[in-house]
């Protein structure tokens, strides 16, 4: 279908686009490339194909422990911040209360406070409160920064559908609680999934706060950082990076699929 036959792309735009994509993806693609290279030196020419870095990765106990820690923390953070975010978003979208606007503004603040400042502040607070540093303190800090994200994702989802739907449910005999489960929740599912994934990744690759607040247990970013001192271990880190890359790709594809499965929210009344 020729919708805009008169409009021709300026010359050289295709070249620019390709260059842009190369710039964007080539550095990332070095990871899987060198993770399969049979040499501990990250340099061309490639010396040969190997999967031993992957084998070595699976055998590195500390790495697996760190991965486990990260998944544990990220999973808890995503669930907790999504619940908090959903409840908050409901309040912001369904009720008018004093201080609503300032509160929305304050919610953004953790997003703009530099991580390093927040890290120092939290460290001071934890030691003042006498809370020993551990995965728990990392998780608590991550909930702090992930909840605003979750809230905004859920606000945009809940804002998109008509408040009359909930009233209609009440009108048809359902209580507030059953209305939530029969109407609000099903319609919010795509937002909830998006929020879970977003906050999970937010926590999973967070470094600065984890660095300040870690006890004896390291998360994956901390582990990777600690390994950079040992050139010997670099290919294993690359193998790990390649795996994370693949996992992210699968997760994003899944998230997009869920989003498209989601029911199109009814437009608000005009």
């Amino acid at each position, binding site marked *: 279908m020729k919708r805009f036959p008169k409009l021709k792309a300026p010359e050289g735009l295709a070249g620019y686009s390709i260059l842009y994509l190369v710039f964007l993806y080539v550095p990332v693609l070095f990871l899987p490339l060198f993770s399969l290279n049979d040499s501990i030196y990250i340099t061309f020419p490639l010396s040969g194909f190997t999967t031993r870095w992957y084998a070595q990765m699976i055998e590195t106990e500390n790495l697996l422990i760190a991965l486990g820690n990260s998944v544990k923390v990220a999973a808890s953070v995503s669930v907790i911040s999504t619940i908090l975010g959903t409840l908050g978003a409901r309040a912001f979208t369904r009720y008018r209360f004093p201080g609503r606007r300032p509160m929305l503004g304050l919610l953004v603040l953790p997003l703009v406070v530099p991580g390093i400042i927040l890290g120092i502040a939290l460290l001071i607070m934890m030691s003042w409160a006498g809370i020993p540093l551990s995965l728990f303190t990392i998780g608590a800090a991550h909930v702090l920064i992930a909840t605003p994200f979750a809230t905004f994702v859920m606000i945009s989802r809940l804002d998109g559908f008509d408040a009359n*739907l909930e*009233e*209609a449910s*009440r*009108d*048809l*005999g*359902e209580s507030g609680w059953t209305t939530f489960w029969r109407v609000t929740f099903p319609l919010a599912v795509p937002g909830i999934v998006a929020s879970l994934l977003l906050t999970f990744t937010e926590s999973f690759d967070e470094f600065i706060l984890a660095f300040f607040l870690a006890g004896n247990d390291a998360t994956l970013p901390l582990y990777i950082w600690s390994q950079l001192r040992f050139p010997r271990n670099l290919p294993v880190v690359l193998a790990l990076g390649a795996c994370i890359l693949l996992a992210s790709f699968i997760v994003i594809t899944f998230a997009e699929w869920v989003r498209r499965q989601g029911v199109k929210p009814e437009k608000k009344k005009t």
Partner: protein
Amino acid sequence: MTVHSNFVSIRDVAKHFGPVRAVDGVSLDIAQGEFFALLGPSGCGKTTLLRILGGFEASNRGSVHIDGADMTVEPPNRRPVNMVFQNYAIFPHLNVRENIGYGLRSEKLSKEEAARRVDEVLATVKLEGLGDRGANEVSGGQRQRVALARALVKHPKVLLLDEPLSALDKNLREQMRVELRALQQQVGITFIFVTHDQEEALSMADRIAVMFDGKVRQVDTPERLYETPRSKDVAAFIGSMNFIDATVEGVDGDALIVDAGPVGRIRAGLPADGAPPVGSAVIVGIRPEKLALADSQPGEGANSVRARLTAASYLGERSHYFLQVDGMAEPLSIARQNTQAQLLHEADAGSELWLTWSPAAGIVLPAAG
């Protein structure tokens, strides 16, 4: 079954939003099986009143009783009342059947009984065969039927409808007026509907409450509301009306004699509640279709005044003419069916004619309001 004239009883209900008095002391009695309209311009409080009946807004004052039971503080899910929302509020994640059956879960019916009820109401609203369609796969008119069916399946004592036809296009709207009226007669449920469209209210309702600024100004049958409005506001809102300022001079038989300034001494209908005192200021209202045009002055008995044509607009089945009486601020408007009468055109502007009307066509209204 005895018909209760106060099946729905609204007593002195008020609702304030901050300084705004959305509903300001409304009392209404609505009979069982009645098709009742709340009519008024936007912002007059009619939708707020409907939402109070549905339990979506708490009134600041007053009480609501339905079939004898006090509903003033009951939540929406515990009222024998269902609502058809303006935008229908069809659940987008459910299909037509699931939408209609939504409210039956709380009634704890058997599966078979629930399915039977859904089938029954699908037939009532003529949606047989569309039950498996998705909520977004049906047309606007069908969505309205789904919303109706979803409410009717609950067998409510009262059905509330918020601007039920405003989301439909014009042709469908006129068809649905007839259908909605027929449906109401068929199911026999009390309907209370909100509209800003006076034609809609006149054509469907048994009785109409006209609301302005949170207050009910007049409750009457469509015919009485149109023929004998009790205030200038109501008269101007229901259809159109020419208003002539006048002073009462006396009574002659069943006519009131008034001095209408530039129009001269005219005879008007005697108000049902008796003649206003001599010398008091009144307004005489005359519907545009009750004014007739004549080339020569008519005889005794009819009112008449000489006027000059200023504008003519042709509207197909009828025409509107505007005639200026010397000394009056605004021209009078006349509506005439384009049947056999000779048409007047823009080109005829300036020509002098006689306006005539019967005394009964003049409605005497209080001067204030």
